[in-house]
């Protein structure tokens, strides 16, 4: 246990240090996110009633695509100088490497969310009506879900010529189911769907904020566990 925490911490600290040194990924992510949000905002201007509905969608789309940038880098750095072999020959469990990388990606995406969420809210005229704690919880659950699959497949795509584009189809295909409750939860929290209507048949969506959040939590648990257990198979040569 002690060694697990120590090795987890050393890989985590190392990756954060590399990102702070190179300052490559986070600025790109933020600019990309702003561009995605901006494009969707001007495109949705045609129908002014649609603007608030597009907001949460824009938020998740931006998170997914910018998350891909962070995830792709997280193993590209290991493959450049063959460092991944250095990690494999060390007496560290592969699952621990996965968890450390996942943590790094979650932290990067959190910093990104901190910057981008207010921008989305301003651009799409969204006001938070629900509990801010629940709002942060939804963002974090989405964040972990996005990072869990992306971190696993990032190790996979390093062996391909198409890297980033392959990663994007892998991640999008697996994440698709989560996007329904994730968007639904934000629609309620931003009061785009009136809370009293949630869970009734009057809407295109049926369900409540509570079920949406529990779905996201289950999704995260299932995929983090599966990826953690399976990571050893993809990383070994």
């Amino acid at each position, binding site marked *: 246990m002690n*060694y697990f925490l*120590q*090795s987890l911490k*050393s*890989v985590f600290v*190392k990756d954060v*240090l*590399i990102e702070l*040194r*190179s300052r490559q990924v986070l600025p790109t992510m933020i600019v990309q996110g702003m561009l995605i949000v901006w494009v969707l905002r001007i495109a949705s201007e045609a129908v002014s009633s649609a603007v608030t509905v597009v907001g949460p969608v824009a938020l998740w789309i931006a998170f997914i695509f910018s998350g891909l940038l962070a995830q792709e880098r997280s193993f590209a*750095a290991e493959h*450049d*100088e*063959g*460092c991944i*072999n*250095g*990690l*494999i*020959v*060390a*007496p*560290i*469990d592969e699952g621990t490497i996965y968890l450390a990388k996942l943590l790094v990606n979650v932290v990067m995406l959190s910093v990104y969310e901190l910057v981008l969420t207010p921008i989305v809210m301003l651009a799409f005229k969204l006001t938070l009506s629900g509990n801010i704690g629940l709002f942060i919880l939804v963002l974090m659950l989405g964040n972990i879900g996005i990072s869990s699959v992306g971190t696993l497949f990032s190790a996979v795509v390093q062996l391909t010529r198409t890297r980033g584009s392959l990663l994007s189809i892998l991640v999008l295909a697996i994440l698709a189911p989560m996007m329904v409750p994730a968007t639904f939860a934000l629609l309620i929290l931003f009061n785009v769907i009136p809370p009293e209507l949630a869970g009734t048949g009057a809407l295109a969506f049926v369900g409540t904020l509570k079920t949406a959040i529990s779905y996201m939590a289950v999704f995260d648990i299932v995929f983090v566990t599966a990826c953690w257990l399976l990571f050893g198979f993809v990383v*070994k*040569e």
Partner: protein
Amino acid sequence: MAENAIIAVNEVSKAFTRPVLKKVSLSVDTPQSLFVCGINGAGKSTFLKLLAGLLQPDSGSVFIKGKCLRKETEYVKSKLGIIMHQSMVYPDLTVLENLDFFARLYGVPGRQERIRLLLEQVGLTAFRYDKASVLSRGLLQRLSIARAMVHEPEVMFADEPFTGLDMTSTDYLTAMLSDFRSRGGTVIMTTHDVSQGLRCADRVVVIDQGGIILDRGISQIDPSRFANDYVQYARESA
């Protein structure tokens, strides 16, 4: 096969699209320096990777210090060091940070003292605050050696460690390896530079077409004929 052999390889096979290694066995009973040679594609890199646990054999098993590589992975891995032609250090970290990271990963006690000593040995003390990306090829390879030795391994695998090194760095590397060897370590090395390999080795193994065709002490071979064409030599003396 001795129970307490340092390395014991039992009939390992490995195929990619076609078989690369076919039931190769090898035993190293006492600390020594082993020079593995073979033409390109003979399977020497694959062999080394199998020994280091970077590849899983299709069949057969590898024992290091009497422990199975597959079953007691953590123990075995803590005894291994590896140098490859890729440096396996992070370009964005400094020399010191790189060594510190790997020392933490191996849980090395007395980390700072150990790193200070290593830096002196490889002659990188003056460069310790430089990023690895600004180091020249030779200095980088020295850092790579220090990285491999940071946890004081007992077995060292070196895959083409001399590639792209100048005279000074080659001397450093040779000195490091022979020092490691004299302190009871075992070195298994591949290189295309046969004369360089022979200089460092106690024992020579020739791999050809997926099998070991010659396995002999350095004193039992004719160095000049061996260096001239070792495959031919191995076939004749087999």
